[in-house]
């Protein structure tokens, strides 16, 4: 019934979906996982990243010689990172900072911010979806025997791994990352040792937001983008972080690939709708068994 090819392609699709989930959940693993801020506007930061790619594409179409067109995508990634991080920083300073002690209020407030961002996108770009032309080096795919692996999927897989390793490198090998870890483990003591926890909070939130921007950039490879693109991904992102274990980056990795592969397998043996139902059943059952997720970790208490 299941040929080797089908198993391999299902596995590839699962890993590919996992890498997409990982990319959209990485930022959230930082803002929700480490900082315990329920940022409902995270999806809209993904949207910002996607529209930035669209804008840069249009700039290239209008102002750059056609032979350089492909470069737009390479440039979009860092620009999306920086702009989304900037918006995140603004959000932290103006709003979230004042709501650290009130998680439910921050949930509502960030949801409102999300709606504002959506409407802003609608006003600027219009309600209909817009398309981004993938750069030529990402169209087509790798043919292995009878298998066809799209370059865009392989690129997202690569990008998610690069993002993951840069986050690990940043957290575990740099002074700034060390400060973040110290603050998340014991913010009062870190403050007493001269670490400015205000700056660290701002920076951490900006980094989490920035990676949402990168995810948005990558999502333009998969389909059209619209003002509500974020809403369709935010649930998945929270799911990955909760299953993986709040406060654990490594948990987000296992959560993303676990959900990605299971989802694809379920969809393959049943159908898309039932597959989605099954994955939710599995997650609910799993959280009954391990309420704090795959990787348990003490996160900072909200203070």
């Amino acid at each position, binding site marked *: 019934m299941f040929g080797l090819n089908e198993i391999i392609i299902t596995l590839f699709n699962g890993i590919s979906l996992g890498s997409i989930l990982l990319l959209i959940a990485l930022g959230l693993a930082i803002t929700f996982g480490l900082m315990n801020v329920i940022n409902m506007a995270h999806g809209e930061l993904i949207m910002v990243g996607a529209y930035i790619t669209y804008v840069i594409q249009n700039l290239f179409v209008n102002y750059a010689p056609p032979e350089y067109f492909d470069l737009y995508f390479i440039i979009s990634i860092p620009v999306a990172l920086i702009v989304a991080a900037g918006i995140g920083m603004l959000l932290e300073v103006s709003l979230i900072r004042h709501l650290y002690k009130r998680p439910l209020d921050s949930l509502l407030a960030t949801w409102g911010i999300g709606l504002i961002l959506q409407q802003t996108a609608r006003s600027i770009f219009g309600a209909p979806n817009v398309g981004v032309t993938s750069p030529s080096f990402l169209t087509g795919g790798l043919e292995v025997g009878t298998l066809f692996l799209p370059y865009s999927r392989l690129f997202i897989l690569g990008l998610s791994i690069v993002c993951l390793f840069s986050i690990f490198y940043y957290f575990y090998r740099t*002074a700034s990352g060390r400060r973040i*870890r*110290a603050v998340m483990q014991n913010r*009062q*003591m870190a*403050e*007493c*040792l*001269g670490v400015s926890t205000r700056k660290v909070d701002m920076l951490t939130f900006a980094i989490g937001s920035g990676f949402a921007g990168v995810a948005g950039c990558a999502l333009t490879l998969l389909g059209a983008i619209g003002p509500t693109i974020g809403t369709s991904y935010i649930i998945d992102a929270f799911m990955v972080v909760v299953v993986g274990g709040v406060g654990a980056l490594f948990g987000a990795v296992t959560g993303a690939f676990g959900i990605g592969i299971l989802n694809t397998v379920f969809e393959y043996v049943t159908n898309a709708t039932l597959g989605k139902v099954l994955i939710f059943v599995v997650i609910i059952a799993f959280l009954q068994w391990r309420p704090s997720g795959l990787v348990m970790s003490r996160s900072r208490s909200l203070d």
Partner: protein
Amino acid sequence: MSIKGLEAGYEESMVIREIDMEVEENQVICVMGRNGVGKTTLLKTIIGILHPKEGSIHYQSEDITKARSSSRAQKGMGYVPQGREIFPKLTVYENLLIGLEAGKQKKIDEKIYDYFPILKDFAKRNGGDLSGGQQQQLAIARALVAHPSFLLLDEPTEGIQPNIVQEIQDVIIDIKNTSATSMILVEQNLDFVKSVADYLYVIDHGSVVYKNPIDQVEDDEVYRYLSV
């Protein structure tokens, strides 16, 4: 350091009342008192974890009553809290590096390993995996790496095995003798207090009830306040 009319506590209940204290350069002030009389609250207020309801704190003739803990640390205040407060998932070495945040220097002074050689051996272990005594040594070392000009020590020898207690006491005496660092030391052992302190304060019910230069301290009087 000059503290005037300090009142602080949690929520509505004030734990310390009308505390006045003067600490000169290189002076060691010891604070004694029974459990729950406000010694830890006093130190937390000085480092800025708690904000006083009344009174003022001046440090190097600057009013720091409203300053954040991090800026107090940047000004040269070091804090060794009760319960050590090590970062459990940071290695010993990383814990020390966080201690450097308050100072200007980039590298950890090797002298710290002369004080506590165990910290060099365990550099790569997680802080949370150390024993209580080792964590206490790490907490003291972490406060010392930034070369503080003012050190707050909250019962540094409480609940620690005797050989390490001796080591810690030697370090405190050495800091007093070899640097200009001032200290406020909360301590229960009167003999050790007499060997290191310049001044002794006894606190009861949140107020200073006894204050004397150490050479005028009468054991009987102190014990009267400490007995349960």
